[in-house]
């Protein structure tokens, strides 16, 4: 199993049924993540980054039509009956979402919530699961875990609550941790603690991590591989060093340039005009063309550009990459 990806996604497409008609939230996405590795999915709102992961793990809303192939530890998930899929997910995948308050039940003690997962998915006795909960709360850095296990979520700060959610996610000893904007609602000093915590757990437990974020700084600090999404598609994908050193899609370059850089002095920021599109009204062709500063090819407005290789493992979705001199800014 060592060399088989923990999660492998091919041709994943998600169409949501909405009151205003079908919305294609994800359109043909391929990626995979291996044990001990972190894949970062980056994008702005409506890019499909969260939806692709929810759909892959069977958590898409009921109205969604999901096609494509998803393998979790070598088992094809898409064909499985719902109860088996749920068991696979419960046993192998842990989730950490943006807002810890929505993941926690306010009327149950944190210990109960962590031990419940261990009981349900690992078949532990109540007593063993409670001992495990103390271990896990200790592992995620809750001070005096044995004492605080009987506290309720509201007695914890935001950062501590997110640690509890991480402990819950780890309770089933998951092979895969899905972290969906886990630090977005937290202060930056708390974010640093959580990023450090997840990296440390990953080193110790060999968990594969899919980290969904809009923050390129967090990506740089956590990811091995990165996939940049826009309008439901991956527009650039590759090893984190290659993508940051040679951003090859105009959108990736623009995102990197849009952050104020204290070293760059007070010049105006380079911006992308307009706003990210909603899945309900995606432009034809390349979804980025109405905002694209390059728009080098007449086909951009009609045809979806292919993902083409830039270097080993580094791909970009574009028509013109090869006509550009290297190093030119998109």
């Amino acid at each position, binding site marked *: 199993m060592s060399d088989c990806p923990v999660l492998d996604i091919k041709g994943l497409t998600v169409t949501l049924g909405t009151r205003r008609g079908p919305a294609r939230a994800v359109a043909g996405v391929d990626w995979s993540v291996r044990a001990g590795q972190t894949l970062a999915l980056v994008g*702005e*709102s409506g890019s499909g980054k969260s939806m692709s992961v929810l759909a892959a793990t069977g958590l898409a809303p009921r109205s969604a039509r999901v096609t494509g192939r998803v393998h979790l530890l070598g088992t094809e998930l898409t064909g499985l009956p719902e109860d088996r899929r749920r068991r696979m997910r419960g046993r192998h995948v842990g989730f950490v979402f943006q807002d810890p308050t929505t993941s926690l039940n306010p009327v149950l003690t944190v210990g109960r919530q962590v031990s419940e997962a261990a009981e349900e998915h690992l078949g532990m006795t109540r007593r063993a699961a409670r001992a495990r909960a103390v271990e896990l709360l200790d592992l995620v850095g809750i*001070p005096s875990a044995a004492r605080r296990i009987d506290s309720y979520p509201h007695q914890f*700060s*935001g*950062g*501590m609550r997110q640690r509890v959610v991480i402990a819950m996610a780890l309770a089933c000893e998951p092979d895969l941790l899905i972290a969906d904007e886990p630090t977005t609602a937290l*202060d*930056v*000093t*708390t*974010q*640093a*603690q959580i*990023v*450090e915590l997840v990296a440390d757990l990953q080193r110790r437990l060999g968990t594969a991590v899919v980290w969904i974020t*809009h*923050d*390129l*700084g*967090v*990506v*740089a*600090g956590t*990811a091995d591989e990165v996939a940049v999404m826009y309008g439901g598609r991956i527009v650039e994908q590759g090893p*984190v*060093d290659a993508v*940051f050193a040679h951003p090859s899609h105009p959108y990736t370059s*623009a*995102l*990197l340039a*849009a*952050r*104020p*850089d*204290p070293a760059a002095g*007070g010049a*105006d*920021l*380079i*911006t*992308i*005009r307009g*706003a*990210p599109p909603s899945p309900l009204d995606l432009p034809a062709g390349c979804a980025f063309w109405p*905002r694209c500063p390059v728009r080098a090819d007449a086909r951009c407005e009609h045809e979806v550009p292919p993902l083409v290789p830039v270097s080993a493992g580094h791909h970009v979705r574009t028509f013109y990459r090869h006509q550009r001199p290297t190093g030119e800014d998109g």
Partner: protein
Amino acid sequence: MTTQTVPADVVAELDDLTVRFPTPAGLVRAVDGVSLRVRRGETLGLVGESGSGKSTTGLALLRLVDPTSGRVRVTGQDVTQWSRRRLRGLRRRVAMVFQDPHASLDPRRTVAASIAEPLVVHRLTGAGAARRRRVEELLDMVGLRHDLADRHPHELSGGQRQRVGIARALAGEPDLIVLDEPIASLDLSVQAQIMNLLRGLQRELGLTYLFIAHDLAAVEHMSDRVAVMYLGRIVETGTPAQIWQTPAHPYTAALLSAIPVPDPQVERHRRRIILTGDIPSPVDPPAGCRFRTRCPQARPDCARTDPTLVEVGPGHRAACLYAGDAVREMLADASR
């Protein structure tokens, strides 16, 4: 309290402001002795994490919260005790832009009606065509098409809504605009647009801003001077370059160290100052220095002495008994 002569270019001033709120858990000391001055044409950046009191400080400048003690002065006038009726005039002079334009715009009103509200309240234009012309002028200023005037907020994108919020703030030609997390809920590509817009408007119209944010990189980019807040106090103030390059307060250094840099090479070799624990409750702040419970460099006298802001460089002040030294040692420890 000493009476000082306030330089004419000071638009707004807080003098030893405290704001306390009664809550079931006790009296929250949201702002606890903050003094600051905003000069005409500048941007003062106010940065801090949740619970630092930065937003309450901004609200106090509009008298949207009542000071418990201290003074609020706007264009030389002490407005601390102003009645509700007089405050209406104050709110023409100090305008505010909020984080979530969705929540701050009335969903039932058109864009034009929202922007015109200050014009109506302060009787700044006639009704009808004159008002419409002024609204269109304001739409131009914030880069919105005239045909958006008759839309409702839900028909706009987040960036467009924030532009409407800015247009409304500009309508009364205020002396000061308090920007409270104006980019925090926007997508990254839209954040850059709004920052450029705000800076462009400032250059064109000579506006004065109090820019409140938790995002230190954005504050650095936007501001002429920066004040860092922690648990109801200003702990450091200086130019963006001073704060960024030679932080003197351990909290500022930790905050800077926590910000991830979009460069994997840098991130891989970076040694962070990771603070332990959380910000203490503002109901019961630590005695002495408020940061000492999380400060990697705390020493015994930090629990006894409440440090005041002292000069550590020209125009650069920090409230730390060991300002400068503590940071040097923290950085040395982190790279060990």
